[in-house]
């Protein structure tokens, strides 16, 4: 469980070729979903700018001048809105009695989704429901869609399913998520076999640390730090002395200058701790309400079913699809004039159910 501890996002030290790559470093999480806090801010700014520009354009096409008085959302306002929906996931999970892994995975999915999309296109309310449903499947805890939506007010199966592909695509189909609560469990098990630790550890220590981890899920911690770094920070908040003992037991043997020492971890732990304590709570409801109110005006009209822009986009897509089908039919007819074409007539070369696009 300590493998990820050395892998901070700033870690660029050269590796001993003899050493086998830690498992965590081969994961898609390590490779593709790790950012610096500045990097995160930049991604969100850019995404927000591009979204505003595109939506503004749609407004203008519909009616010139109509975007002038629209107060589009800022990147940090998007984050606040998403955060509110992050807090809804544990509530739903409690109702369904889903395991911790489903909850943690759904939360990761929702965060990752909004590193690729804007709330002005896709409202987090629906995306959250889809992310959670997808997480039940990817963590091997599936329930039927009917049961799922029956327990959620004003939600039809299609509300969840329509976004499933989009969510899966946004996640780059990388479904595996490594969680801090698992790393915490590893620390907890390790502690019980340390020689100088009282065997009767109070379970409340683990529970307190777990609550800190749950709080960390409302922050960007998992996008910046490794699961074991977050787990150790949470454990340090719950029981600093025990945490130190555990860390020492992991780091003591042959510490060389190039390797990790307590001195290099401590500042990282401090950053995570303050993140948990300062940001690990639900956003102010009034502030979110205000964001949501503005979102009603500035959301992308192309995504509003029935709107003029939506219909225009639909028509355009239909036209393209028709063109493609037409091309395919032509190709098929060309194929049939081939001297060898007759043999395969009747088994229908063109299968509309089967278009390869």
């Amino acid at each position, binding site marked *: 469980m300590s493998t990820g501890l050395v892998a901070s996002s700033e870690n660029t030290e050269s590796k001993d070729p003899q050493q086998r790559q830690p*498992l965590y470093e*081969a*994961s*898609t999480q390590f490779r593709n979903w790790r950012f610096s806090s500045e990097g995160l801010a930049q991604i969100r700014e850019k*995404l927000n700018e*591009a979204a505003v520009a595109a939506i503004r354009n749609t407004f203008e096409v519909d009616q010139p001048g109509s975007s002038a008085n629209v107060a589009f959302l800022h990147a940090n306002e998007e984050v606040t809105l998403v955060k509110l929906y992050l807090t809804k996931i544990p509530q739903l999970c409690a109702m369904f009695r889903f395991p911790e892994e489903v909850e943690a995975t759904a939360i990761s999915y929702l965060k990752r989704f909004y590193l*690729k*999309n804007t709330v002005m*296109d896709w409202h987090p309310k629906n995306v959250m429901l889809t992310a959670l*449903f*997808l997480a039940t*499947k*990817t963590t*091997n*805890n*599936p*329930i*039927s*869609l009917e*049961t799922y939506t029956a327990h959620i007010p004003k939600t039809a*199966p299609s509300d*969840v*399913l329509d976004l*499933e*592909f*989009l969510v*899966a*695509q*946004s996640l*780059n*189909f*990388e*479904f*595996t998520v490594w969680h801090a609560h*698992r790393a915490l469990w590893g620390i907890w098990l390790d502690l019980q076999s340390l020689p100088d630790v009282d065997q009767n550890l109070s379970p409340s220590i683990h529970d307190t640390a777990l609550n800190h981890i749950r709080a960390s899920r409302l922050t960007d911690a998992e996008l910046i730090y490794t699961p074991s770094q977050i787990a150790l920070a949470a454990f340090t908040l719950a029981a600093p002395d025990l945490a130190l003992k555990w860390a020492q037991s992991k780091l003591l043997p042959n510490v060389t200058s190039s390797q990790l020492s307590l001195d290099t971890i401590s500042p990282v732990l401090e950053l995570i701790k303050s993140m948990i304590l300062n940001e690990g709570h639900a956003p102010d409801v009034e502030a979110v309400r205000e964001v949501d109110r503005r979102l009603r005006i500035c959301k992308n009209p192309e995504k509003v079913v029935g709107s003029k822009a939506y219909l225009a986009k639909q028509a355009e897509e239909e036209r393209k699809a028709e063109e493609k089908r037409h091309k395919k039919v032509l190709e098929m007819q060309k194929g049939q004039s081939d001297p060898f074409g007759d043999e395969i007539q*009747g*088994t229908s070369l063109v299968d509309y159910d*089967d*278009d*390869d*696009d």
Partner: protein
Amino acid sequence: MDAVEKANTARQQQWIKDRKVGEGTYAVVYQGREASTKRKIAVKKIKVGQFKDGLDMSAIREVKYLRELKHQNVIELLDVFSSKTNLNLVLEFLDSDLEMIIKDRSLVFLPADIKSWMAMTFRGLEFCHRNWILHRDLKPNNLLIASDGQLKLADFGLARDFADPGYKMTCQVITRWYRPPELLFGCRYYGTAVDIWSVGCIFAELMLRIPYLPGESDMDQLKTIFRALGTPTEDDWPGHTKLPDYVPVGQFPKPPMRDLFTAATADTLNLLSKCLIYEPRKRISALEALSHPYFFALPYPTHPSKLPKCSTVVNKPLDEVDANVDMNSSGPGVKATSKGLKRKLTSPTEAKARSIARRLDFSKAPPSSP
């Protein structure tokens, strides 16, 4: 167009489908190329639209695990993209599988060839297990062979991760002939040893050139195992009579393995028997197997490029395409029928008719147990 949609389209354009090489109820397989390099690839197009619960578990498992696993002896998932209601998996192209090679009567296997295939199987499996992933459907036709002779574990539609002991799992996994006795007795807590049993059966099959333990039903499977390896005693396998589905199936003596595997060396039989130990905890692990004397004794394993290959180019059997999803079953999507009963689609028209008939059957499996 959204950035995500754009990225998806860009991915799609990197891959060219050339021709359909197989069609099943829920998937179509194409042979194709990578646009930039012309490298041969396979595209497995999964029709998601027909599942009322969206992306199905089998596809999710396959994508989830193959996205993380990169190893010479595990099939490589090159890309994933969606098209309308289809999910497309771009996989490295592999032209045959071990079942085809075993069945090809024109091929002669040397002991060194078998050793090479076993080494590659254990290497791929050790990598999965090291990554906390159980394959749960090892059998010769899930061990694919690349043109350079490398063997690759494929079809992760039944795979799952494991970590804590005491986490309940389904016992309805692994094709029957390769299924270990603990699963046949309904054991819901198990680990990597289940895959090792399957590898043992494959090992024996490579020597015999016919399936080693071909049971006709789950009950008959136990009988077949006990006939071959002797009925386990309480000493052999403590506690097995307490397993949920335990039934006595008769007392069989343990015949010497040598009687069946007449040409095998002592090392060979030793490794084989360690894969087929009744007590799962005593069964050899993939890591231990890799350092077993068998692999260090003469003859050394054949270089992959020199291994026997199927002479004729055969399309992948069509039923392969369906992976493990049996939409009519009530269990968690297991295809554990014996090979004789497998569907072989004979003509395209029949394929079509069947595929439609299947689609009209909406009996839906209940959520599978974890």
